[in-house]
């Protein structure tokens, strides 16, 4: 009872909350600081707590550099009879305004994650997901290749009389890189296959 009354005192309440704010802001700002040994050591005591409760954050929005390539990804399924199926991830510039808006999560995933090495551990999952989706028991998929089609954005040349290339004249994605190849096993086509 005495403890409850003590905590309810405005000065104690404000003092306690102030301590929480200071600690939280200290660790959050440390979390956002540039990579260094000091940063690593500072956040170590709270790292698991922050990750568990999703308090980790990163706001490098459009920075430090904006990418200088345009690209899209395609998966090519090859079936037992030799036929191929191209599975194109939603390409925002080919969709109407509503679908671009609606399919934002597909854009984020297929552009910022799917074709890049950070996602490589999940490529087999992706292959099995696509395999199950387009499976035909009479003509099963045999393999999948994940291809990245890309092109560099023309460089801004401030010394040139026409320094920029208009948005409507961006070059098509003519370069190709196969980032992943997967050969299917019969077990891959079962629902919930891991």
């Amino acid at each position, binding site marked *: 009872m005495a403890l409850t009354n003590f905590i309810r005192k405005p000065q104690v309440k*404000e003092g306690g*909350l*102030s301590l929480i*704010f200071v600690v939280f802001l200290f660790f*959050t*700002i440390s979390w*956002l600081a*540039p990579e260094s040994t000091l940063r690593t050591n500072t956040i170590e005591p709270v790292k*698991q707590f922050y*990750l*568990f*409760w*999703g*308090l980790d*954050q*990163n*706001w*490098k*929005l*459009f*920075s*430090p*550099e*904006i*990418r200088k390539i*345009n*690209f*899209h990804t395609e998966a090519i399924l090859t079936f037992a009879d030799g036929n191929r199926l191209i599975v194109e991830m939603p*390409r*925002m*510039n080919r969709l109407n*305004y509503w679908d*671009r*808006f*609606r399919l*934002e*999560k597909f*854009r*984020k*995933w297929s*552009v910022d994650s*799917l074709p890049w090495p950070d*996602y490589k*551990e*999940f490529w*087999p*999952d*992706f292959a099995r*997901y696509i395999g*199950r989706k387009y499976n035909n028991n009479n003509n099963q998929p045999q393999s999948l290749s994940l291809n990245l089609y890309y092109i560099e*954005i023309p460089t*801004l040349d401030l010394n040139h009389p026409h320094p*920029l290339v*208009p*948005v*409507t004249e*961006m070059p098509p994605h003519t370069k190709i890189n196969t980032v992943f190849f997967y050969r299917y096993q019969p077990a891959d086509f079962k*629902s*919930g296959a*891991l």
Partner: protein
Amino acid sequence: MTFAALIAVWRKFWFEPQDASPVALYRILYGILILQIAVVHLGENFSQWYGPNAVMTLSAVIKHFWLNEPRFDMLLLLPQTEGAFAAFHLVFVMVAVALTVGFCSRYSVLFVWLTLLSMHHHDPFNINGGDAFLRAVGPWLALSHCGDKFSVDSLIRRKKGLPEPGPSAPWAQRMIQVQLAIVYWQTFCCKIGGTQWLDGSAIYYATRLDDMFRFPAPIISNNIYLLKALNWFTLVIEFAGWTVIWFKESCYYVLIGLFCLHLGIDYMINLPVFEWAFIFTLVTFIRPEDLNYVLHRVKKLSLKSVRNAGAIT
């Protein structure tokens, strides 16, 4: 300045009672964004992202993203069936509606935040900065007095004859403001750490990312002088977003600048949720007396137009 004066400033900032109108309005706007995510962006694809037959398997997420460490994820508690995930999605939508209208406000925000947290841990690869920001401010909104006004909760209180809650310590609302300032601080520091923002070419490249095109604005995107001006404007206003925004005299100018920045990006670049998550949070910086004055004027004008419409018919 004395130490006592510093403490007085600190106490005034976090604890001086204030009307809950800004944070209550923010609750509504936050709820609208959550509904947009739940209904439009997830919609019929909820199970495809999070269900038992999702694009990514849970075992791979636990091994490669969680690194076999514990993470909060309510979705693990569900039976691993399509039906259970569909039902959970429906509950999420219903609670988002409750949050927006202010029914059991704090609990609604808490549930929504825990759901966002679970979804972001279950599949971290489909969220943009706007989703992450909504997650970051969620706990502070849940701890705020967001249900004191413009809510079903306040209607119920009135119906029961209970007194209206008076001004309260705004520390949770302040934490939402601080969180927004932290965003501008880090993004500004990262921008000046690169080369594109300093040589003025950043907006040129940003407007040429073809996966993010929204509405065309050739007057801007094909004009090198305007592109450069916007580049510098972005840096200046993002710097102001964590510095002079805290001063009474300059706060509203910064808010207008940030509003224009985000609205401009939203027009040209297709990043749903992202820009509006920041635009809506600017509301928490509006002084309660100013907000109440504007809302009073809007109410008066709408009543007048309804009366006029009635007179015509």
